[in-house]
């Protein structure tokens, strides 16, 4: 219990424990290598959305992708998730298909919370008899022990996102992609979910690639913040966040760094108004 709060540094330990897993053989959980993406037909005016992006996510690392609208951060996440193909460059996710969490909970309304998680387990190939206990364990991990039989519409926004997190974890992927998963929540709930996510990340060996446009959220959560410029999206700058976890969004250190990053982000946005 208390040990879960000891995070920095200890993060690497669970990964090492899983040395038998094939994914740990790699030095990265995801490698985005000189990836570009443009939309539109070849020949006609193609719109370049992502331009030569290279990012490595280390095993067990928590990286946030930060950028204004139009920086292609969701596009990049879709590419990593395998939902779309890059126009150039390669993406390597050695741990197999990554789990993906959306801004909307994307839970299936025809299933209960527990059955949503069990479907993920079933599609992963977990034996039938093991599914229910595993789903209950995951619900307990997100502190929704009693929600197994609840329908999605009976849960609050925060609870839905926690079930969605449990379902994503049910995929037992080495990499968890999160596409602004808390953007639609009220500030109090979001704050609590930040703590939950930090706690769960500490308990598991999962690597996280978290997309947001919220600078403080990025600093609050990540070990590393990658700032993308807009149109086309390029890696503008990176910050390693050395602050101990668990942090609070209102911590002075978080605020100070947020100010610095926000300045940089505004600079990137301003460039677009100049021509």
């Amino acid at each position, binding site marked *: 219990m208390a*040990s879960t709060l000891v995070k920095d540094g200890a993060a690497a*330990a669970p990964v090492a424990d899983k040395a038998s897993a094939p994914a740990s053989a790699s030095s990265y959980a995801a490698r985005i290598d000189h990836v570009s993406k443009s939309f539109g037909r070849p020949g006609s005016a193609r719109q370049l959305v992502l331009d030569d992006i290279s990012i490595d996510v280390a095993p067990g690392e928590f990286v946030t992708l930060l950028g204004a609208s139009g920086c292609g951060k969701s596009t990049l996440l879709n590419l990593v998730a395998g939902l779309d193909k890059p126009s150039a460059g390669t993406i390597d996710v050695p741990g197999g*298909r990554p789990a993906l969490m959306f801004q909307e909970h994307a839970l299936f309304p*025809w299933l209960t919370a527990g059955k949503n998680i069990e479907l993920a387990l079933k599609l992963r190939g977990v034996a039938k008899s093991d599914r229910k206990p595993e789903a209950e364990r995951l619900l307990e991990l997100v*502190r929704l022990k009693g929600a197994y039989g609840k329908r999605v519409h009976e849960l609050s926004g925060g609870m839905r996102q926690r079930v969605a997190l449990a379902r994503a974890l049910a995929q037992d992927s080495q990499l968890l992609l999160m596409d602004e998963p808390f953007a639609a929540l009220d500030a109090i709930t979001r704050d609590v979910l930040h703590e939950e996510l930090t706690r769960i990340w500490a308990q598991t060996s999962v690597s996280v690639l978290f997309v947001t446009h919220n600078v403080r959220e990025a600093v609050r959560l990540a070990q590393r913040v990658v700032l993308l410029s807009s149109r086309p999206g390029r890696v503008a700058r990176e910050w390693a966040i050395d602050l101990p976890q668990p942090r609070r969004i209102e911590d002075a250190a978080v605020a100070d760094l947020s100010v610095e990053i926000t300045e940089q982000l505004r600079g990137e946005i301003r460039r677009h108004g100049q021509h």
Partner: protein
Amino acid sequence: MASTETTPAVGGTGADPAAGDTEAPAAAGGTKTPPAAEATEAAGNTAEATGDAGDAAEGSVRTAKKPSTAESLAGLEAGLDALDTAPARERVGLGRIALSKLVPPLIAVALVLTVWQLAAASDLKPDYVLPGPLDVWKAVETMWLDGTLLGYIWTSISRGALGFLVSVAIGTPLGLLVARVKVVRAAIGPILSGLQSLPSVAWVPAAIIWFGLTDATIYAVVLLGAVPSIANGLVSGVDQIPPLYLRAGRTLGARGLDSVRHVLLPAALPGYLAGLKQGWAFSWRSLMAAELIANSPDLGTGLGQLMENFRVNSDMSGVLATIILILIVGIGIDLLFFSPLERRVLRSRGLLVRS
């Protein structure tokens, strides 16, 4: 000033894991019994705690000083969950449901019967053109006493049900094909929705020429009426699936048949059910059209044939009685079967607001 201290050193994270391994137990130990001295010392340190020595102490400080320990976070979360979850609705008593759902239609029916009775009694038209409700009731009673009434009804219902089931068996895969295969949709999608506006009675002459006065004629007309509406219901059900569900299904690893079974079909169920409901209505209508026209002693007597026989005998009471029976069967099957099913599905998904 603080910013210079907290501005991250890029090398920091790289060096930490090794250090963390050895220091974690110490920090955990500190958590169990946080020594006051260490806590205060570390509290003083936090501002400039960048040295290695500060790390272990800081671990304990975090747990000791920060209000959000595991328990308080759990408590906070439980509170939020409770606040955010809508309180359970008071269950409405059966009596009140009956009162609000049954009384208005009963009053409406009573009103219609009263107007009808008044019109019949005022002798605007002779009785053989406009019989009163009581005459019609007598016609029904006579059939009941003859023991023939249920037979007529059963003949029609069994034809309708069989035709409907076959229509479901054909319309469902057809709808899936149209919904999911672009070429098929381009080829027969417009025809399929166009067929819905073709009155199925228009098929009767053709069916009689093809199949003669047989059951095949009746079933052909029922199928031609019901299959398009069932298929179209499924198509619109699939079209209305939020793309997010399909994406979520794909990220969970649902491919091919798995995707159809676990995501596509359940997601399309509300639209599909609406299509089935309409399909039943079309089956029943088409059946009556076919029975009215395809009338021969070789065919069993259903409600349509019964009505035609009454017409031949200029028995208006009988004709009206049959119309009412057809209406009652159509409404009854919908109320007993399709509506509860549809309500159940919608309610379980939170798509039905209890008024």
